């Protein structure tokens, strides 16, 4: 899927919610509070997502998996480039 597509689409999703959401709140006594909640939700959710995403961007270690499971991965998820089975 590439790095850019998820990065842009998820960020855009939360950006739209965080920036557009506050305008959709109907007028009333609680407008301010609902707006605050929407913005904060977008910020928190995006922040948490990006943290986990960035951590996996350049993994420094790989998963240690039992041979049995590696075989299963090879069958179901495929092999890396240059590996023949």
């Amino acid at each position, binding site marked *: *899927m*590439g*790095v*850019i*597509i*998820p990065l842009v689409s*998820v960020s855009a999703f939360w950006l739209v919610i965080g920036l557009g959401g506050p305008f959709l709140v109907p*007028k*009333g*006594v*609680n*407008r*301010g*509070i609902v707006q*605050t*909640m929407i913005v*904060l*939700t977008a910020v*928190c*959710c995006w*922040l*948490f*997502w990006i*943290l*986990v*995403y*960035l*951590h*996996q*961007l*350049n*993994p*420094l*270690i*790989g*998963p*240690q*998996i*039992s*041979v*049995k*499971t*590696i*075989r299963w*991965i*090879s069958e179901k*998820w*495929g*092999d*890396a*480039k*240059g*590996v*023949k*089975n």
Partner: protein
Amino acid sequence: MDQYGTAPSPAEHPGIFRSEEMCLAQLYIQSEAAYGCVAELGELGLVQFRDLNPDISAFQRKYVKEVRRCDEMERKLRFLEREIKKDQVPMLDTGENPDVPQPREMIDLEATFEKLENELREVNQNEETLKKNFNELTELKHILRKTQTFFEEAGTEGMAPPETAHDAETLELTSVPTGSMFANFGLPIVFCCASTPNVNCFCFLQHEELQVEALLPLEVTRDLHAPDTPALIMQLRFVAGVIQRERLPAFERLLWRVCRGNVFLRQSDIDDVIQDAVTGESVNKTVFIIFFQGDQLKTKVKKICEGFRATLYPCPDTPQERREMSIGVMTRIEDLKTVLGQTQDHRHRVLVAASKNVRMWLTKVRKIKSIYHTLNLFNIDVTQKCLIAECWCPVNELERIKMSLKRGTEDSGSQVPSILHRMETSENPPTYHKTNKFTRGFQEIVDAYGMATYREINPAPYTMITFPFLFAVMFGDMGHGTVMLLAGLFFILKEKQLEAARIRDEIFNTFFNGRYVIFLMGAFSIYTGFIYNDIFSKSINLFGSSWRNTYGADFFQEHLTYEEQEKPFMLVPEKGFDSPGGPYPFGLDPVWNLAESNKLSFLNSMKMKASVILGITQMAFGLMLSLYNHRYFKSDLDIKWMFIPQALFLGCIFVYLCLQIIAKWLFFTAEANTVFGYDYPGSNCAPSLLIGLINMFMQKSRDKGFEGPTCYLNFWYPGQSFFEFIFLAVAICCVPVMLFAKPYLMWKEDQLRRGRGHAHLAPVELILLVVALVQVPLMLFAKPYLLWRRQKGYQPQIDQPGTSGGFQQSVRADMNGEDVEVVQHADEPPKENGASHGGGHGHGDGPLDMGDVMVYQAIHTIEFVLGCVSHTASYLRLWALSLAHAQLSDVLWTMVFRHAFGFDGYLGAFITYALFFVFFFLSVGILVLMEGLSAFLHALRLHWVEFQSKFYGGHGYPFAPFSFEKILQEEREAEEQA
């Protein structure tokens, strides 16, 4: 509710971001209108009255009489309510809110209640007497009936063996078992008994017709030693009565002992249960009949009967009389029954009529009482025409309050309008946050820590999201989140029914009141669970993992045995990770759920970094809020000399740390690479940030680039040593600025205001500057030096409480053992300062108490500086709790539910079924409830301590308006508690 219309408070002032603006107002109300006005204000519930007569005791106030009358009415209503409950008449409680009655209606109400109470008391009294009579008659009826059977039985009994007649010794021993005695009942003169020779005996006579006509009183004196002497006629009497069944054995024993066996008791249980007339309890009773002889015994027996509360009834001797009496008693019982029924009907009618109104009356009386209580707080004008009240009220609601006053005045028919007059005050107004059912739960979380200072930023609106979010970071699991969400949803959807059910259980109410918090916590837990890719500790592969197999066919050939198959091997990231494809787009790659041996090291690193970044973000946000507070209170001093150094301090060390984390994520890969111009050989040389941070503080010299065996400790970007020096220097410089700048400027301002001290200013300024500079080495060396000196020798001059000793002590106490070093540097300056200050212009005659200011400032500085470090570390609890949660749920899966999959067929189905229940209940009980509770508490702490300490004062006191709704609610709760 009102025809005047209520203006909704403007949306710009929602009263939740900051507390409502309040003002102190004075009310001038005509005394005849006071009642009506206060009633209207009570309905409105937006005014907090202040007690203007604090020195006058509660008994000397003006409206004590009315309050007493209300108390009396309340008492009567309570009595009425009790009677209604006793009769089990359903009470009509529509929960409607009746208007406050006019004061003149109070007399009507009083009269009504008086009448009702008297009527009820009379009816009760009548009923009691009637019931007593009825009980007596019933008992008499039973006595007549039972004695009749005694005598009849006695008559039909057969003859006793003749030898018993003379066997006095045996008789004495066996006279209690009445059965054997009754065997003798039928003899003309059956037996005599005696404990000693030459005593009175009593005998039973029998008629020829085998029916006991009477027990003839006979007087017999017989010598036991003369068996030939014919039995003499004896005087024999009896009494009959009724006694409570449980008292009977004791009664019988005492009777036997006191009368030395010279009485004869016969008993029979009454089958009907008799109601006690006074208490209404059911009592089981027994009829007894005692035969004895002689007056002496009679008094004894009567006394004993009295002692045991047995009731004696006259019982005629002849069957004829008994029968007549019995008939008489029956007719009287019938009559009584009708009368009793009528009385009860009447009582019931009265109660049913009252039950329709009693709750409403109670509400009315409570309203009246609270009005008079409030009026007691008012001041009475000299002319006695006018009442003066002082109250706090929200500025936004002034119009509504004025409307209410106007309405109250008009309704009371007063010609003079009531006046509301705003007052200027230097007092701190109460804090009033307008909440609704959603925001209340969060506001309570904040208020539990401390009521916000008047008009300062309220953390609750931000807490509404950050609290469930931080909770969810610790609780992240889609499955558990769903359970929690559904629980919250259930409470929210069933809100009305559950509120109406008025469940009094405390634990239930805690959950119910926090239903919106629970709902949001559940929702966020689902999101974070999705990111963690955890659903009951299992992962889902929604987008396709980014990892591939890196091992060829020959590798699998080598590992074919069972043990070999279980050996873990790493999928090396250089080959196995699909870098062009990018990482798993949303959340954690499911491959990590399979990596049982090193899943934790990957996750821990991720969660720790995420915790630190989230924590620093939240603290920075808190700091930003403090800026808004300073701006709102127009405190330029605070912005320049508090906020900016604080922000610099946080930025230079902690935001820098965050940037380092992100840079490490972005630029350091598993493969060899070029990073910032240095050759980077591979993952073993990725910089260690934690040690890097420590080295930054120690300013340790290191190599540049990624060479050498400890390449992960080297500087990893050009100019790092320079930047880190600058950052550290700025951060350290911020500390004295935070500590001294504000107090010094305040002091200077104070000096200028007082228009003198210009001459002193220059030298004092110089002294202060020197003092500030001296602090730095003092901070560094004072403690080591003191420690060294202490260690060197335990010389006598350890403590000498000098002039400033007390002050130092107090500072120490305030520090509460944070850090000794800091205490030293904190309490040095005020000492010096105080000295120079005192030399400058005499002792504290001004409003600015330099010592206080300094102590306060020192505490805050230390709290902030140390807090930044300890709070950042404290945010690691996000990682720890999340790790614990994930591990626990993993254990629950593997240790419990997974066992079910080892079985086949019907057994497998059954075991799956059974184990699912165990798994589910443990999941809910341990993971959702207990883990949820602990995550809740940790989220609470993070908000109270780590977040709020950055900006929240919490020195306010709550606004407690006079409101009927609240008073009635409290009364009702108190009633339910009782």
